[in-house]
C-alpha cells in the first residue's frame, strides 16, 4: 500500500526533481545523505517524506548508525557465538555469562565505542560524553557499570601541531576524569599512543563493563506482553535541547576543522551529576519492576535521539509506537519537530512500562529523587504509547509529522565497497653493528608510546565502588571483584598498536586480539569475550576499505585461532563499533586502528598476578619465541628511524598454549609475577617488572640473551647458548615485539613450571634471575655485560610520557 504523507506536515521534495534541485533541497533541509539515498527513501515510502521522516532516515542511514559499509565484512569474519554468550552484537551491549553462585547466574555486559570527532573539536566535552554514552549502553541492559576504560590516540606532541595536540590531550583526559570520577565508575585502564596521523583526528574510544544477573537482564525492546496490555513510553532525563542534532551524521563524514565551529553544535553537553542521579533512581525503578514481576523495555537515547530509540524498540517487537513530541520536556521554546525527534541531548533514557506501573516510575524519578529540583527541566514524562499496528507515528502540536510503518523506518541500507591493497614499504629495519644497547633500551623506554602512563591514570578514580583488586599500572589488566563478598573476579584490557596497522592491518587486528588476551591471562584470568572498536579513514577510498577488511579478518582469525581455554569455541566478539571517516579534510587518514578489548574471568580473584618483581633470587622465564622481526616496533621507528618491514606474525597456536599455561600456573600459584611482552619487547617488559616492584624492595635482574636461540626464523641457533652475541643481535632480540610473557618463578616451583610448559608445548627459556642489585644486566653480549642502573631506567620510563603532556 502506498500511503500519502500526512497532509499538514512539511515535506522534502524528492520525487520529480532534477539532481540539481534535489541537491539544493537536501542542503536547505540540512540533510547529508546522497541523492541516491534520498531517492531510495521516497521509493521505500512510495511518496515524498516529511521533514521529520527525512531526518530520521538521514540519521538511521548514516554510517554511524547503519554500518552500511561494514556490516557484511563484520558478519563474514567475526565469531559472535559461543556457549557462554547470552546476547551477541545487536543491542546496546553484548552479554556473556561469568559464573554461577548459589544458583544465580552472573553475567558481564560490555560495550565499546568511539567518540573521536567530538573529542577533536571540543576535547573535554567530547571525551566526557563518550563515557556518558557508553555507560548508558550498559545501564540500559539492567546492568550496573563496574568499570570503564579509555584507549586514546593523539597527534604528535612534539610535531608541527604540538600545541593543539597537547591541548587535546589535556582536554580529553580532563573530560574523562571529570565525567567518570563524578559518575562513580572505576577507570580500570586503557592505553595511549601518539602519532602524527592523529594530529587532525584524535581517537577517543571508550569501554564500559557491567555486572548483571542473567534473570535481571532488560532488553532494548517493547516486551511481548505489550501485545495484550497497555504500555506507555516514558522519557526520562535531561530536557531535550538542540545539542547533538546531527551528531550521527557528523561522525559519519570527514572531519573538517574549517567547519569545526558549526560542528560544535553536533557535540552533546555532558552532565555526570544528572547521570549519577538517573543511575541510582533507575536502580530503584528496576528493583520495583522485579518486585512486581513486570516486563519492561529500556533503551538509552544515543544517535538519532527519540526517533531512533523509539522506532527501534517498537520494530524489535513487531509493534508500533505513537509519540506526541509536544509532550517531550524541552529546554527551549519553538523547537522544530525534527529537532525534538532527532536531537542527541545527553543523559536520557526511554522506558517502555505497563500503564499500571507508570505512576510509580514517574514518582521515583520526579519525587523520590527530585529530578526536576536537581536539574533545571529534567524529569520523567509519558510521551507516548505502544500501539498494536506496526506503525511509527509522531505528532506535534496536534499534527501528524511522521506516519510510516516501523519496517519502512528501520529498513537498512548496505554497500559493497571496493577494496584495494596499498603499496607497502618492505624494507626490513637494519640494526647497525655498533648499536649502543643501553642507549637503545633507554630511548625505547622513554618514548611517549612506551613510557609509564602514570601521569594519565592518576587523574582517574580506579577505586570507587570498593571492588578494585588491581589498578592501572600494577599489572597488564585491571582486576575487580564485582560481587561483594565473593571471590569471583573480572579482568579487562584494551589494546591495539596503530604502528602495526600502518604496516600490516591483518596483523594489527590479530595482534590486538593476542595482546588483549595476553594482558588478561597475565593477571591469571581466562579470556571469555572480546569487543572491538574499528577506527579507520574514509571507507569510500579502496585502500582504506582494504585496511578495514584485513583488520577485521585478523581479529576474526585470532578470536577463533586462540579460542577459549577449556573448549574448542572461539573467544566471542560480543559487541563493538565501527568508526570511519577518521580523516582530515586535508586528506590524511589515521593509521588503521583496530582496538580490541578482552574480558577475562578469575574463579578465585585471590590468585591474581601482578607484574612487579617479588623476590630477589627467583628465576625469570621467557615464554614465546623471539624472531627478531622489527617492522612496526618502537625500536625501529624511534632509534633506527625505519618505518618499513614486517612485524612478527601472530602465532595463534602458540598464543593459545601460552594463555592456557599462564592461567593454569596462576591458579596453581606457581608464578610470583607475570608480564606480557608487547611494545618495546622483552627488555621493556623486564624493566617494567623491576620498576613496578614495591618501592621499599630493591630488586634488579639479569637476563642472558644467548638463551634466545632456536626460534624459527631467529637470528640465533640453539647451540649458541653461553656464547657472546653481537650487540646488534642482542638489541634486535631484546627489543623485537613478538608476543610472549615473562614469568617470575620461585626456585622451589621451577620444576613444576618447566613440566607444565613442556606438556603444553610452549616455547620457553630460563632467561635470567631477579637480584638484589638495583640494575638490569644483559649477559652474553660481545664486548661485555651491559648493565643499566635502575635510576636511569626509572628516569626514562617514568618521565617519557609526562614530558609531552605538560
Amino acid at each position: 500500500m502506498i500511503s500519502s504523507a500526512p497532509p499538514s506536515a512539511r515535506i522534502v521534495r524528492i520525487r520529480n526533481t532534477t539532481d540539481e534541485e534535489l541537491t539544493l533541497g537536501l542542503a536547505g533541509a540540512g540533510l547529508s545523505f546522497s541523492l541516491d539515498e534520498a531517492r531510495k527513501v521516497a521509493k521505500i515510502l512510495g511518496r515524498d517524506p516529511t521533514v521529520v521522516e527525512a531526518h530520521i532516515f538521514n540519521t538511521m542511514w548514516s554510517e554511524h548508525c547503519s554500518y552500511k559499509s561494514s556490516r557484511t565484512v563484520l558478519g563474514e569474519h567475526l565469531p559472535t557465538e559461543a556457549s557462554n554468550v547470552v546476547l551477541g552484537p545487536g543491542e546496546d551491549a553484548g552479554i556473556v555469562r561469568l559464573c554461577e553462585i548459589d544458583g544465580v547466574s552472573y553475567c558481564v555486559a560490555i560495550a565499546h565505542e568511539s567518540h573521536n570527532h567530538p573529542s577533536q573539536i571540543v576535547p573535554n566535552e567530547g571525551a566526557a560524553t563518550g563515557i556518558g554514552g557508553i555507560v548508558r549502553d550498559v545501564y540500559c541492559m539492567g546492568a550496573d557499570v563496574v568499570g570503564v576504560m579509555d584507549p586514546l590516540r593523539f597527534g604528535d606532541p612534539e610535531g608541527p601541531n604540538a600545541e593543539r595536540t597537547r591541548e587535546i590531550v589535556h582536554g580529553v583526559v580532563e573530560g574523562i576524569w571529570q565525567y567518570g570520577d563524578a559518575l562513580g565508575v572505576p577507570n580500570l585502564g586503557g592505553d595511549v599512543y601518539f602519532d602524527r596521523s592523529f594530529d587532525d583526528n584524535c581517537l577517543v574510544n571508550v569501554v564500559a563493563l557491567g555486572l548483571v544477573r542473567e534473570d535481571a537482564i532488560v532488553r532494548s525492546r517493547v516486551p511481548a506482553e505489550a501485545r495484550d496490555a497497555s504500555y506507555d513510553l516514558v522519557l526520562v532525563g535531561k530536557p531535550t535541547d538542540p545539542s547533538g542534532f546531527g551528531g550521527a551524521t557528523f561522525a559519519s563524514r570527514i572531519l573538517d576543522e574549517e567547519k569545526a565551529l558549526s560542528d560544535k553544535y553536533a557535540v552533546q553537553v555532558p552532565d555526570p551529576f544528572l547521570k549519577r542521579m538517573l543511575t541510582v533512581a533507575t536502580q530503584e525503578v528496576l528493583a520495583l519492576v522485579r518486585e512486581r514481576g513486570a516486563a519492561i523495555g529500556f533503551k538509552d537515547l544515543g544517535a538519532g535521539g527519540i526517533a531512533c530509540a523509539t522506532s527501534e524498540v517498537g520494530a524489535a517487537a513487531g509493534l508500533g509506537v505513537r509519540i506526541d513530541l509536544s509532550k517531550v520536556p524541552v529546554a527551549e521554546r519553538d523547537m522544530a519537530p525534527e529537532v525534538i525527534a532527532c536531537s542527541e541531548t545527553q543523559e536520557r533514557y526511554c522506558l517502555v512500562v505497563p500503564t499500571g506501573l507508570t505512576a510509580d516510575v514517574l514518582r521515583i524519578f520526579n519525587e523520590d529523587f527530585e529530578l526536576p529540583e536537581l536539574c533545571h527541566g529534567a524529569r520523567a514524562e509519558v510521551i507516548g504509547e505502544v500501539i498494536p499496528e506496526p506503525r511509527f507515528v509522531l505528532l506535534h502540536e496536534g499534527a501528524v509529522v511522521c506516519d510510516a510503518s516501523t519496517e519502512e523506518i528501520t529498513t537498512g541500507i548496505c554497500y559493497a565497497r571496493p577494496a584495494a591493497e596499498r603499496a607497502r614499504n618492505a624494507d626490513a629495519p637494519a640494526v647497525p653493528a655498533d648499536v649502543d644497547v643501553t642507549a637503545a633500551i633507554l630511548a625505547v623506554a622513554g618514548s611517549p608510546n612506551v613510557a609509564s602512563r602514570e601521569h594519565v591514570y592518576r587523574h582517574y578514580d580506579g577505586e570507587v565502588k570498593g571492588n578494585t583488586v588491581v589498578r592501572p599500572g600494577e599489572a597488564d589488566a585491571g582486576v575487580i571483584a564485582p560481587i561483594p563478598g565473593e571471590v569471583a573476579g573480572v579482568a579487562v584490557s584494551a589494546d591495539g598498536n596503530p604502528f602495526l596497522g600502518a604496516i600490516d592491518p591483518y596483523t594489527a587486528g590479530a595482534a590486538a586480539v593476542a595482546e588483549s588476551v595476553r594482558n588478561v591471562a597475565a593477571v591469571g584470568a581466562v579470556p571469555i569475550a572480546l569487543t572491538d572498536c574499528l577506527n579507520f579513514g574514509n571507507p569510500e577510498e579502496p585502500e582504506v576499505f582494504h585496511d578495514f577488511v584485513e583488520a577485521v579478518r585478523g581479529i576474526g582469525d585470532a578470536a577463533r585461532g586462540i579460542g577459549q581455554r577449556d573448549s574448542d569455541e572461539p573467544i566471542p566478539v560480543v559487541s563493538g563499533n565501527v568508526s570511519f571517516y577518521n580523516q582530515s579534510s586535508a586528506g590524511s587518514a589515521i593509521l588503521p586502528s583496530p582496538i580490541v578489548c578482552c574480558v577475562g574471568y578469575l574463579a578465585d580473584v585471590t590468585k591474581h598476578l601482578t607484574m612487579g618483581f617479588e623476590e630477589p633470587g627467583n628465576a625469570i622465564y621467557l615464554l614465546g619465541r623471539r624472531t627478531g622481526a622489527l617492522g612496526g616496533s618502537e625500536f625501529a621507528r624511534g632509534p633506527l628511524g625505519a618505518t618499513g618491514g614486517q612485524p612478527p606474525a601472530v602465532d595463534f597456536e602458540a598464543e593459545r598454549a601460552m594463555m592456557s599455561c599462564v592461567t593454569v600456573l596462576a591458579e596453581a600459584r606457581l608464578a610470583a609475577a607475570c608480564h606480557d611482552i608487547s611494545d618495546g619487547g622483552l627488555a621493556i617488559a623486564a624493566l617494567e617488572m623491576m620498576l613496578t616492584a614495591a618501592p621499599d624492595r630493591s630488586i634488579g635482574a639479569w637476563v642472558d640473551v644467548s638463551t634466545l636461540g632456536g626460534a624459527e626464523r631467529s637470528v640465533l641457533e640453539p647451540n649458541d647458548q653461553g656464547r657472546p652475541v653481537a650487540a646488534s643481535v642482542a638489541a634486535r632480540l631484546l627489543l623485537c615485539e613478538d608476543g610472549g610473557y615473562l614469568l617470575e618463578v620461585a626456585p622451589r616451583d621451577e620444576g613444576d613450571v618447566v613440566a607444565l610448559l613442556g606438556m603444553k608445548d610452549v616455547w620457553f627459556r630460563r632467561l635470567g634471575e631477579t637480584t638484589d642489585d638495583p640494575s638490569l644486566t644483559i649477559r652474553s653480549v660481545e664486548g661485555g655485560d651491559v648493565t643499566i642502573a635502575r635510576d636511569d631506567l626509572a628516569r626514562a620510563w617514568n618521565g617519557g610520557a609526562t614530558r609531552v603532556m605538560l
Partner: protein
Amino acid sequence: MTRPYPRIAVIRFPGMNCEEETRRAVAAAGLACDVFMWNGPTDELALYDGYVLPGGFSYQDRVRAGAIAAKDRVVDCLFEEAAAGKPVIGICNGAQILLEAGLVPGFEPGRVEMGLATNIMPDRDGYYTRWTHLEVVDTGSSATCSFGRGDVVPIPVAHAEGRFVTSTEGLLDRLEENGQVVLRYVGPDGASDPGFPSNPNGSSRAIAGIRNVEGNVVAMMPHPERAAWLFQVPERLAGPWGASRRSARGERTLLEPGPGAAVMRSLRTFAERRSEEA
C-alpha cells in the same frame, strides 16, 4: 540481654557516589547501617547513633565542593545530633561538607573557619588518586579511637580539592594544641614529609583529617572504605601492609580487614562508648 548494634546512617546527598561501599565497610565493622536520602524525614534521621557523609560530588560541586549540601536541612539535624555527642565522620566530599557547614573545626559552630582548596601539585592539576600513608596524630576522635597514637596507616586519596587551608591567623596552631589534627600525611616509613607526593595536595602542615574540639565530628580526605579489606591494598605498596597484601595472595586472608577498617571500628567503639555513657 544483648545490646543492639549501634545504627549508622550513611547520608546520600545528590551526586555522591561512594555511599554503597561506605555502607558495606561500616556494616563490616559490626554496625547496623542504612543509606539515608538527603530528602528523607529528619525525625527518622535523628534516631540513628551516628552518621557518615561519604565521598562523591554532592550537587555537582556547584559553587565549591560541599557548599550546597552544607545548606541542606539534614545538616541542621546533624548539628543537633553532633551537639548531643553522636559521632559524625565526613569522608572526602563529606569532609568538604562538614567544613563548609562549620561543623569542624567548630570553634564557632556554623562558621566556615577552614576550607578544602584546589590541590597544588608539581606538573599537574585536577583530580589526583594515590595511596597515602597517614600518621594517626590523635586518638580522641570518632574516626581514630581504635588506633594507637603514632600508627602509620595507608589509605588512598582521590580528589581535586583536598588541601586544608585557613586564612584565620593562629588557627592551625590552635588546632594542633587542641589535638584536633587527627591524621597527617607522612612518608611510607612514617617520617615527616610535607612534600609531594607524600602530601598529595599541598595541604597545610600535611593535614589529612581534623576533628571538632569534642572529637565526635571528624573531616578526613582519605577514603577508609577503599582500604577496608586487604584485597583493596595495592601489592606494590611500601611498608608492612603492602607486605601483608603480597603474602596473602592466593589465601582467604585477602578478604580480611584492611588498614582502613580501623576507622569504622573506631566509629563503632565511639558510638558504643557514648551509648554506655548515655
